């Protein structure tokens, strides 16, 4: 199978993730979409690693996972504290500041 197809898949996943960020309201879902984007990147990295025949891409993918995990920690902390304050996870409710 042509590895380029994995790239197309990665691009597709990335776009789905991005569009998800744009259209979903729940902060958790939003955040998961971001994670999807990161994983799309991982897929691309691994594919390129395969294409180039070096391991850099794969190693980077591990780094990405770690970073994503860290993001989850911070992100969930923030989202949860907001949820506890507002009893809502909708990002459209947090718009006190504008203009």
């Amino acid at each position, binding site marked *: 199978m042509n590895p380029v197809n994995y*790239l197309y898949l990665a691009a597709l996943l990335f776009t789905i993730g991005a569009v998800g960020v744009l259209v979903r309201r729940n902060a958790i879902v939003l955040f998961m979409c971001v994670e999807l984007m990161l994983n799309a990147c991982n897929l691309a990295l691994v594919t390129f690693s395969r294409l180039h025949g070096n391991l850099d891409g794969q190693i980077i993918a591990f780094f990405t996972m770690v*970073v994503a995990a860290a993001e989850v920690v911070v*992100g969930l902390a923030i989202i949860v504290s907001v949820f506890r304050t507002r009893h809502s996870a909708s990002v459209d409710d947090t718009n006190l500041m504008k203009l």
Partner: protein
Amino acid sequence: MTGMTLAAAIPPIPAPHIEYLQLSPMLAVFGAALVGILAEAFVPRRHRYATQIGIALAGLAASFGLILYLALDGYAGSKADLAAMGAVAVDGPSLFLQGVITLVAVVAVLQFAERRLEPRSSTGAPVDSFAPEGAAVPGSDAEKRAATSGHATTEVYPLTMFAVGGMLLFPAASDLLTMFVALEVFSLPLYLLCALARRRRLLSQEAAVKYFLLGAFSSAFFLFGLALVYGYAGSVQLGQIARVVEGQATVTPALANTTGNDALLLIGLAMLGVGLLFKVGAVPFHMWTPDVYQGAPTPVTGFMAAATKVAAFGALLRLLYVAFPGIAWDWRPVLWGVAILTMVAGAIIAVTQTDVKRLLAYSSVAHAGFILTGVIALDRAGLGAVLFYLAAYSFVTLGAFAVVTLVRDADGEATHLSRWAGLGRRSPLLAAVFALFLLAFAGIPLTSGFTGKFAVFQAAAGSGATALVIVGVLSSAVAAFFYIRVIVLMFFSDPRADGPTVAVPSALTGTAIALGAVVTVALGVAPEYFLHLANQASLFVR
């Protein structure tokens, strides 16, 4: 099937060689952060404040000292080289920006430590501007308990240290992966810091959510860009990317295959750009700035506005100057558009702002545009100019936000501009200092803002970007309008009877403001030495 052959073809991974001395400034700060966490765990609550401040300042001082040592030892010039297997560049721009960031961080820590502005807690303990307990729901009993028992979120200091460490690494990162990690390392603590305001916690949390979501979103773009560029060049090392882009690398068949597809490179660069332009606050990636600047605790805003901008521009410079000068023809016009849009939109939207922190946020957007004109120059003059501008701008920004923390009423800081009317009559010295910062923002001669603006515009003009200079000049005029509006308000409007009071700060904030003012005037009147320094430092290693 092919797995086996691949594995055989891959040489063993050598143990990395780490130049600890060159990395020591970052290590010092990260070390301080780790020690801080330990202190958080083991030091009794009542000693934590002093301990944490001590640790943070010691870490920063050590870091600054090491930076100075490295710079004097020639690492800014002849000895400049890549460290840690080509992941970190220790060269002029790195050291210069790291120096600026550590200094900014020192001032920021001083402001974080300010405990004289907020009214004392019921136990009589002085409190700072951070939430007593970040996890407690605003308005809940838990929060009240935390407040009355004099809790303080001393975690901010280790968090800050992590952020500073990331920021030190960011402009020095010489491969895209390090850059990405640094980006996250300094972003994540900042998201948390944003959420920790003592007053107006809803706004603070909202700022954190917005900052976090958008930040994560932009990191994803950055990572995607990283992947594409890696795909194109087969490496994330900036120097190697440059060699591939310029066609100087040894061409393997795989490389020949991927470099045939320029779209990979161009889209990759664009995506990397999104990540960095988000951090510098360029239009149209700026929209988080006003909300986050407004909602975050003001000392954090000041720190963020100053240090993030320095770090992010450092990374942007390195990326564009080291990895992609070969395709400058492709990205420069795009960056032109971004710069123009940023300058104009920042200046114009700021005109109708009514909150002083949002005003400063939009002003920072406009300034990002001005700095971009220097970035576009793509020569040593441009690099030197941007370095200088960043140094000058960060101290003005710190000073300005420090002043904002002092103007208070019963609800905390009085940030609505109408509350500032007549401040010049009530507290002429403070108003005069703030006016000085505003004039520096506006780029009036004899302030650092003018020198910086002159330097970047001069570099841009020197590289033939006359149109940018003209747009820059015109948007400066628009920008001047709203800075002056604030001055008018402070000096020529009648004070309101129920107007805010000006708190008398401790030496901590006082030092921050004074330092800001002194640097502003010094870089305006006698900029020769610093310009020299910036110019000396303006050579990337690759």
